Each structure stands twice: as C-alpha cells, then as structure tokens.
C-alpha cells in the first residue's frame, strides 16, 4: 500500500482547489448555470445517477474491449518486429505515420463509415493505442539481458525457446507501463468517439447536458470519467502485483 506521505499531499491540494472553486462560484462567480459549485455538481450528478450510470457502461465496455484489442494488436506487431528485421523496417515507419493522422478529423469519418454502435468507438481506441502498446512491447523485448540470452543459447535453446523463456517475461514490466498510458488515452478516445456520434455513453451524455445548458451534469460526467480512468489505473497495479510479484522485488532491490 502507498504510504500516507504519498497519498495525503495531492488529496489536500484537491480539497483546497475544490474549496476555492466552491467559494468563488457561490459568491462572485458568474452564476450557477455557467459555473456551478462543486457541491451542486455532486448533488445533481447524484440525482441523475441512474442516467449517468446507464451511460457509463457503454463507455467502460468500449474502453475495456478497445484496450484488450490494442494490447493484442500491439503484441502481434511487436513479435513481428522482434523476430524479423524486414518487418521492423516495414512496420515501424508506418506506425509512426499512423500517429500523425489527426484524430479530430478521423473520428467523424469513422462514424460515417461504421455507424453509431460500439465498433467505431473500439476501432478508434485501438487506433489511438496500438502504437504505444506496440512500442512498449518492442522496447520490453529489447530490454532482455544479453547475458541471459547467451546463457540460454549455451544450453542449446532455439529462437522460440529464448523468446518464451527470456524475451517475453522481460517485456512484461514494460508492457504494464505501456498499458497504463493506454488506459488514460483509451477513456479519453472513447469519450471523444462518442462526442463525434454514438447511441450512448458518457460522451453522448456530456453533449446532451451541454446542449440543455446543464453545466453541472457535464461536470458530473467529467468527474465520472476521471474516476473511471483512476479505477482502471489502480486495477493495472493490482494485476501487476498479482501477476508479476517479482517485478516489485526487483524494483525494491534497485531502490535500496
């Protein structure tokens, strides 16, 4: 568990900022319709919780499926790049170029092509993320200790054996770091895709609230979005702790 010295300072800062906001919005602020107080946001968000929750599930589902696919696609590309020099020369430049395409322009197009369902959302998430997941795997494979590789070779291990026994496990901590970056981008791109057009989701909810001048509900949805990201983030640490107990030992050893 993180120590209080790590958790407390940011919590105090957030509380302080909320307090300033509350006082400003309640006194000299531009009015509740434009800038509601945090307490009003919480109150109205809670009152509309059913609707809010109903719109959270599609976003969460798209995010999780999108993440899983990003990881799968990234892994596939990374293995290809790792095993073949030709694939590395062919794939990596294309990956870099793919990241220069403007998402703002692409999102509406994807909706035009694939409609308002889950699929275009997931596609967009994968598109945003597979680059970083690919790179984190590639970097992870490369981080494999050359001594360990030489050791396995000396035992007569073939390429596949070396990959399975040394390179893949070496990549896992890098993969977890990449996953955490992907988590933040995934939630944001899901909302963005929903903004561009969808049947349901937090993005749709925000847009609807904005169009009816319910700034308090927009902010409530923003709060839910942030919480969603944080929960997924915390989950990634939990998974790492359970699946890679050794990674913490290695890190602790390096720190001491």
């Amino acid at each position, binding site marked *: 568990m993180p120590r209080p010295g790590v958790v407390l300072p940011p919590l105090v800062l957030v509380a302080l900022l909320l307090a300033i906001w509350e006082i400003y919005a309640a006194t000299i602020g531009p009015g509740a319709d434009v800038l509601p107080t945090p307490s009003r946001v919480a109150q109205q968000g809670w009152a509309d919780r059913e609707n809010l929750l109903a719109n959270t599930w599609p976003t969460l589902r798209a995010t999780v499926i999108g993440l899983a696919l990003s990881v799968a696609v990234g892994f596939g590309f990374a293995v290809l790049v790792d095993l073949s020099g030709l694939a590395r020369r062919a794939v990596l430049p294309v990956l870099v170029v793919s990241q220069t395409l403007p998402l703002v322009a692409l999102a509406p197009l994807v909706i035009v092509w694939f409609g308002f369902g889950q699929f275009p959302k997931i596609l967009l998430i994968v598109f945003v993320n597979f680059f970083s997941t690919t790179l984190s795997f590639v970097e992870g494979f490369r981080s494999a*200790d050359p*001594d*360990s590789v*030489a050791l396995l070779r000396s*035992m007569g291990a073939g390429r596949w054996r070396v990959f399975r026994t040394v390179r893949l496990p070496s990549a896992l901590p890098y993969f977890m770091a990449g996953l955490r970056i992907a988590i933040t981008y995934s939630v944001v791109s899901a909302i963005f895709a929903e903004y561009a057009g969808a049947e349901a989701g937090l993005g749709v909810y925000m847009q609807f609230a904005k169009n009816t001048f319910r700034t308090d509900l927009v902010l409530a949805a923003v709060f839910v979005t942030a919480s969603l990201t944080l929960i997924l983030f915390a989950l990634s640490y939990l998974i790492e702790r359970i699946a*890679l107990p050794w*990674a913490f*030992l*290695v890190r602790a050893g390096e720190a001491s």
Partner: protein
Amino acid sequence: MTQPALSIKDLDVTLGGLPVVRGLDLHARAGEFVSILGPSGSGKSTTFGVLTGEVSADRGDVRITGDALHGGRSRVAYMPQRDALLPWRTVLNNLTLGLEVRGTKRAAAREKVRPLLEPFGLEGFENRYPAQLSGGMRQRAALLRTVAQEQPLLLLDEPFGALDALTRSQMQGWLENMWEKYRWTVVLITHDVREALFLSDRVYVFSPRPARVAAEIVVDFPRPRTQALFADPRFAALEAELLQQLTRA
C-alpha cells in the same frame, strides 16, 4: 589413454574483420581446474563463445571429450559474468533451467537439483526470487544452475568479478571446497591473478589480441588449499611471475 575433457588446437577466430584469436592451443584434462588470465579484450570470452556455439571459428580443431564441437547438442555448461538469474523465476526454477532447456521434464529436473541445495547453501531459499538473495547466494545459485546441467565441461566467465572483495574471497574459498568435493572439469576466465593461482591446477596467460597462449604455468600447491596459501612465499613468487607474464604479454 583417456581423451582430454577439452582440447583446442590451432584455433582462429575473426570477428567483424578483426583477428581476435590466432593459433590458440589449449586443453583441460578431466577433473582439472584450468584458468585463463589475460588482458581485457584479449579474446578470452570469444574463446568461450566458440565453445558455447555463440561464435563460429575460422579454423581449428575443438573437441570435447574427444568429439568435435560442431552440430549436435551443447556439451558445455556456461556461467556468464553476471549471474544471469531470471528475476521472474524462483530460485528452484532458475536452477532447473538448464536441464529443462536440454529436454528434462521440470519435475524430474527438480529431483536432480534438490540434493544439491544443501551443499550449495541454498536450502530454504528455493522458493525465493533472485532479488531476495545476497550477491554471494546469487553466485552460488548460478554455479548450481551450471553444474546441474551435468555436462563434461564447466565454463566460468569471471564468476566473482561483480562481487565486493570480502564476498569474493569467501566465494573463492567456497569454490575451492566444492571443487575438492565434486572434481568438475573447470575452465575459468579471470582478471584476478591470485584467484587463478588459488583455484587452478594450471593457468594459461593469453597474449593481447589476437589471442594465443603466451604462457602456461602449472600450479602444484597441495589441496585442500586455504587462505594460508596466500602467505606462502612460493605463492608470492608465482604471483609475481604471472604478473610479469601478463604485462609482458
């Protein structure tokens, strides 16, 4: 007469156009402890590379227990400079790694390794991760992983190079004891003249690159050897001679 465990005759190796080894002759009898001393970058590790199959030679005759190297299964057990224990495997699973890669089932490999835990001072630590071991224990685990492969030749590449001085001299004493007990055939690469003299039956001094044998010294101090050997004037004389060979080479 029995075949030597290792025989290298007239070995040439070129790496990236650079002559690294030229006309190297070297051998180790079964149960012999042989050290290779040489300046940095003199081709000691490259010679090991030929034996592990990592590096291919231009020419030369390399035999392990009489059989030529090329093709076939790896017949050496190699211990790299750093322990190279895999951090995600428990100690026990690291120890069985060589046997597993060579085709033994994990359960059978464990049965082979278990009796060695006690003499290697690793009993009770088999389910820890390497990060939870001290430097000396990690090195002992790496050596156990090496000998557990049951190959006719052990190649130790500066096994104690990364340890602090105290742990290092403890490990040298420990290795001497273990060798007395098991009489493995060992080829050890080291920078440390005293380590080479303390542990070996014979010491080869390599020339600077391209490597060949510049000197071969028989070390016939009686065994078991202890720290007291360092005080022996004959030890000091040999040490001085070796240092001179090294600087001249």
